[in-house]
């Protein structure tokens, strides 16, 4: 069972925000999308996904509503709020700073 610590701290938030930036979706679809887009590398278990979703909703970055879904019954669909979009910008910036720094370190060390 993957735990939040399996991913770099804060990375899961970034992944969720980035995934939802394209279109609103429910929890199952978010997990599937992250798995598919990462080439089956990043598998997000429900044990980390749902707490993270709830945290982001609590922060006011996500909005959630119950909608009919392609699964045949109503699902809780998450979408980005305006502040959520800003937050995504921030996280992307700090991520690229971090990853280029790590890259640099790996190449030169």
């Amino acid at each position, binding site marked *: *069972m993957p735990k939040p610590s399996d991913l770099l701290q804060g990375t899961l938030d970034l992944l969720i925000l980035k995934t939802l930036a394209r279109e609103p979706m*429910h*929890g*199952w679809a978010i*997990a599937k999308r992250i798995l598919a887009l990462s080439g089956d590398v990043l598998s997000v*278990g*429900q*044990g980390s996904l*749902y*707490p*993270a979703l*709830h*945290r982001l*909703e*609590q*922060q*006011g970055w996500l909005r959630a509503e*119950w909608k009919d879904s392609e*699964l045949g*019954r109503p*699902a*809780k669909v998450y979408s980005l709020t305006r*502040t959520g979009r800003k937050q995504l910008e921030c996280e992307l910036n700090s991520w690229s700073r971090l990853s280029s720094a790590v890259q640099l370190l790996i190449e030169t060390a």
Partner: protein
Amino acid sequence: MRLARVLVHRLRSIFRRSRADADLEREIALHFEQLVRELVASGLSESEARIQARREFGSLETTKESCRDQRRVNTVENLLRDLRYALRALRTKPGFSLPALLSLALGIGANVAIFSVVNAVLIRPLPYASPERLAGISNSAVFAGQVFPDWALSLDMYAAYRDNARSFEEFGVWTPGSAAVTGTGAPQQVTTVSMTSGVLRALAAKPVLGRWFSSADERPGAPRAVILSYHYWQQHFAADPRVLGRLLVVDFVPYQVVGIMPRNFEFLNVAPDLFLAQTVAPGTPGSSDADYFGVARLKPGITLAQARQDIARVLNAWAAADPSWRQALAELHVKPNIHPLKQDVIGDVGAVLEVLMGALAVVLLLVCANVANLVQVRAQSRRDEFAIRAALGAGWSQIARQLIVEGIALAVLGGAAGLALAYAAIRLLLLIGPQDLPRLREISIDSASFGFALACSLVAGLAFGLMAALGSALAPKLRNVRTATQTRERLLTQSTLVVAQVALALILLVGAGLLIRSFAALTAVKPGFTHPEQIQTIRLFLPDAEFPDSARVVRTEAQILNNIAAIPGVQHAAFATALPLELEYHNGNPVSVEGKTPPGRIPPNRTLKQISPGLFATLGTRLVAGRDFTWDDLFQQRRVAIISENMAREYWSEPSAALGQRLRINGDGPWSVIVGVAENVYDDGVDQPPPGLVYFPGVRRGFTLAIRTSRAGSESLLRDIGARIHSVDPNLPLAQTRTLRDLYRRSMARRSIALVLLAVAAAIAVLLAFVGVYGVLAYTVAQRRREISIRLAVGAEPATIRALFLRQSLALVSIGAVAGLLAARLLVRYMASLLFGVPALDLPTYAFSALLILLAALAAGYIPARRAALLNPIESLRAD
């Protein structure tokens, strides 16, 4: 915006917890179903897929809990849970919670009650617009080395200030009085305030109906104007607005009603029925009585110091017009005394209130110490519980939070009970209505009192909670609780608390003791009259309109006296311009004595009285030398005088040597021959030195009858007197009907209120200290039970064991007593103004207080010590 959404979200999660949980359940179930469906699609059977999915899925409950954590409702929920737990603990442990709640309620209640009084009287601004710009004005003067800060102004000074002062926006003068209202049924005696037009304007107090006084109302000869108080309007005119313009006969002079004041208007600390427009005759300096108090509204931005300079300039210019006045101002060091108006309203009650507030703060500290002790003892007995909780994984912070919540819950409950107690106390105070307390009607439990109570509770609760939490930090793990010896740290805190309690209680005991001694000294004073409860007093006033010449005034007063003397049971009757302690009719003047006062110097001020023959016999004042006045002295207006013994001794070695000497008022009146010397009378109050008194035979329009009879104060006597007076003139109202004892009591009122409250505070304090010592000793005995049992088992005498504990309590109390005596010695100087006839370092009071607290402590220590000595070693050792 975002904050708002976050808040709404969290609140919703708390209140709709079940709904949020159901949502979560559905959301996760959907995910699970999806996973199962995927596994079935990959070829597993339905049941295999479910098992596989559950394995992959992990703990559902953990996820849910973790989601709830993300919703952050847990902090609040935990607090609520702690609170529920705390309340349950309080309910199930009445042996702990009742004494704690009771002492908190007492301590906080007493503090809130006195705070409400202090707040209303001292702190809250006066109920007028921009009260910070209001000032009271009088003169200060120095007479024979004594400073008189509150000399009233004369109307000429008023005119000078009104016309020439530059720092006032509005300015006026007023004087309190009483008057008879006739022509509307039975004559009534009313209280009045005569004022110039600027007074109400300065206070910015507009009438609800009609108009303010105008400067035209001040001119002599103009129709005279009166403004009614709301209360008087309601009572006598049934709130009829058509009363405006009607005439009211006040002291037989018609006044036109021009206005009604609002219901909630308070005129400083007087509650007059009528406001009369004061007329001001243009005159030369010194041509009118100095009876008036000034009220000014300073211009914005002007300080009191600037205003003082301004009116000092005006005063000097005013006095320059007359050389004798210039000399008088210089010789008496007359200076304008301009001060915040609040000072005039509060008077000297501030000192009493401050002492009380201080005393009650000490009581609150004691209460906190006591409750902290109880909490500590309880935390001790809960050590096992905490150890188990810690073992089950509760962090120290969780246990500490629990203890702090318990402390605050306890204190807030105690504070709520205290608030109820304070409310009842204030109702009682308003009901009793001590006359000496200014701004009495403004006293209430308001938001400030409420806040004060809350602050007291929270601080107290946080204090014991923290103390208990820190205590519990020492035992976070399961320890061997079956040790034979006690924990030293715990006992040290408790002993310190007991020492503090004893010290605090001793401070209050010393304070109360000093006040009791002061009170005893006051009652021991021979006031210069005897059996005041047998002396009925009645105030009468013969108005000029009905009694135009003084001969008629004399005849009428003599006739009234004759009629009254004939009432059965009346032993003596007499009158005077003012009886002893009747401060409201106080009158004083410089009196020079032939051959003793250097010419050209202003002689010392004396209290003057015009009296009828028989006054000394009526009051029981002894004549030390010479004779009383006779009716011939009075009718023939003989120039004779009687002086008080202290004044006689000031000039002559023997009182009898004063007889035949001459004195006169100011430097220029006719001489009067001294024919008698009377015993000293404490005319200004029993706590003030007796003034030098000069009596003249004579009458004034306003006078007080003194009637000595065993029927004094009875309804039937007043009816008889009323009938006799009204047979002389049916229009005369009777006022101030009271006995001399009422006046005597009133002059002690300030100290008696302070005494009663401080004595109550001291009693509470001693009780708390008693409980504190008992608690610590009992706890120690319980802790050392095993040790004592072993000692007893190996042959220790029970008496030795008892002595061991008694010695311990005595040691604690002795340290506390020494600390308390030292603190009391430092603190009593704050109550110096309340002491009378007893030094602030009165040794007997200190010794007796210390003895009292030692005895109380020994008594408190004896019970647990005796219990220790009587322990059955076999039983207590087996019990473990």
